[in-house]
């Protein structure tokens, strides 16, 4: 009798844990972690400085001009771009995985990232023949990426559309094929390109080097469109992850709702890639990590995935900025733009093993 009562009490205890407050705490911890990382990002570098000096530089009272340049002109825009791009890429993946009901869905696997990369590389190629100045390229390359991403997303949707609509499985399969096709075109362009090869490779892998406020200014309008759009489609996404019949029962038109959610995801991913290039794994890994922390309800999953994406990309770029190939004594590497490793290489090198671990632990 006592034993039974004890067991009941125990099971009640574990069930009564109010998940809402727990999840709110998780999101708060993630936000704090991001803030700490951002501060570290501003502190560390060739001219490392204390938090006090960083704050002084931020509020416009730097002790040395160098501090202002390092914080304001080099590190802050790059940190903000890393955070914003990571957040957009990862939340885009969260929408795709939910609405397509497939854990493999991500901007990279359904063709949006390859499309955006092709757009950027295409512009770089066209520019290599003409007398384009660097300023024009700074503007045209992100625009090419956004156009490429939107085009690829639209193409996948149109190709999967049959009769009543584009069903999730067909969307994924079409996306994988389109992704492979667009990547093949990019490879071909890289092969025939005489110049700009280094810049192109950095686009393929994903890099934040040489990014400035100007790039952020091109990304912000996209974010300003994508974020409200993303927030507005969260409830529809939630209904859709319960199946088309349930979504219809709740008063949605499943086909329209799915198109709207995917459109938001495509804009988010295109905006991210337009500045950082083809970052690997983040769009797939971010939402998976977030799901283990806060579950599948998009009202929590999307913010958590965005925070995790921002954290991972800021941390990876901090590594990329500080780590130098010169540290590897056996390698004598000298690329045109120095011995820094692009951030995308870190997300791939760290992301792939971590992803395998996550899969083995959870599935």
């Amino acid at each position: 009798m006592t034993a039974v009562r004890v067991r009941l009490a125990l099971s009640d205890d574990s069930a009564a844990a109010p998940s809402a407050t727990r999840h709110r705490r998780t999101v708060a911890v993630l936000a704090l972690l991001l803030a700490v990382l951002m501060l570290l990002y501003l502190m560390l570098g060739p001219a490392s400085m204390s938090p006090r000096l960083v704050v002084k530089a931020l509020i416009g009272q730097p002790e040395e001009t160098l501090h202002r340049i390092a914080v304001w002109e080099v590190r802050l825009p790059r940190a903000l771009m890393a955070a914003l791009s990571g957040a957009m890429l990862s939340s885009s993946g969260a929408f795709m995985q939910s609405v397509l009901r497939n854990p493999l869905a991500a901007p990279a696997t359904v063709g949006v990232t390859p499309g955006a990369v092709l757009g950027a590389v295409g512009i770089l190629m066209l520019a290599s023949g003409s007398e384009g100045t660097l300023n024009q390229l700074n503007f045209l390359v992100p625009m090419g990426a956004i156009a490429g991403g939107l085009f690829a997303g639209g193409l996948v949707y149109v190709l999967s559309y049959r009769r009543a609509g584009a069903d999730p499985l067909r969307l994924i399969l079409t996306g994988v094929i389109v992704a492979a096709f667009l990547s093949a075109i990019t490879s071909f362009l890289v092969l025939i390109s005489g110049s700009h090869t280094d810049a192109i490779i950095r686009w393929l892998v994903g890099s934040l080097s040489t990014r400035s406020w100007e790039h952020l200014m091109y990304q912000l309008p996209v974010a300003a469109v994508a974020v409200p759009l993303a927030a507005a489609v969260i409830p529809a996404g939630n209904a859709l992850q319960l199946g088309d019949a349930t979504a219809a029962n709740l008063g949605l038109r499943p086909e329209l709702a799915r198109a709207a959610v995917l459109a938001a995801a495509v804009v988010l991913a295109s905006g991210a890639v337009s500045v950082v290039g083809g970052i690997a794994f983040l769009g797939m890994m971010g939402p998976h990590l977030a799901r283990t922390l806060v579950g599948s309800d998009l009202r929590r999953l999307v913010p958590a995935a965005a925070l995790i994406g921002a954290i991972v990309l800021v941390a990876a770029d901090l590594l990329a900025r500080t780590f130098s190939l010169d540290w590897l004594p056996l390698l004598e590497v000298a690329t045109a733009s120095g011995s820094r490793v692009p951030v995308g290489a870190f997300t791939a090198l760290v992301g792939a093993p971590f992803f395998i671990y996550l899969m083995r632990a959870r599935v």
Partner: protein
Amino acid sequence: MTEHEPSIDHPPVHAVDVSAGYRGRVVSQALSLSFEQGSRTALVGPNGSGKSTILKTLARLITPLSGSVCLDGQDIASLPSREVARRMAVLAQLHEVPPDLTVRELVSQGRFPHVGPLKMLRLRDDEAVQWAIRLTRLEHLADRSVDTLSGGECQRAWIALALAQQTGLLLLDEPTTFLDVRHQLDLLELITLLNREHGVTVVMVLHDLNHASRYADRLIAIADGTVIADGPPVEVVTPELLRECFGVEASVMQDPRTGAPMCIPHATIDAASHESEWVTDAVET
């Protein structure tokens, strides 16, 4: 009339001369059915008879090929889908559950038709959600992930989602499939409770004839997309119907406890003779 008021003149759901089916395949033709306020109806029939298609057409999950389905006297096709979802809840046969979605989160989706997409962004546990969870006895599982529940609990969670919609009409497509006998009874008792205590009009597709005759006031037997019998269980469940509709020889007796008819099928009818019977039927009509 913007707000929904149950009217006495019109049955809650009412199909007029409906042809149901999919593109290029008519499943059922010229069907007219009417369901009274507060009734409990079971659609029965063999596999492929079209009973699920008819239910989905009533539920506007499939558009009728011709004719119309009316909800409180209004054509369902002319009503905004969310407005329909405030009056009618549908539990489909197949659903998807993402990993790590709690029962409470699942049930709260049922509020969508009432609060709309923007207010759904706020996470709150309103009274309708609590009521639905309480009625389906899921309080102790509310924060558990749906994919860790047993089949019976899972089905109760889906019913709770439909209840959170707070509709006067509930349509269920084979709600007892994949459940063991105890959980089947449990679910049918829950549906009875909703019907008796809360006045919910129920239309359900059931496979088990004995369950149908015990838990419904009205049976509609469907074969080949046509209604071949419609009435209270005692009138519908007969050896003739079982032969004609299901192709089995069966004895029908009375359940000593409830008085409902009970059937015990004991042999299938030879496929050839069954088919020829259909041919004669078709010629006659």
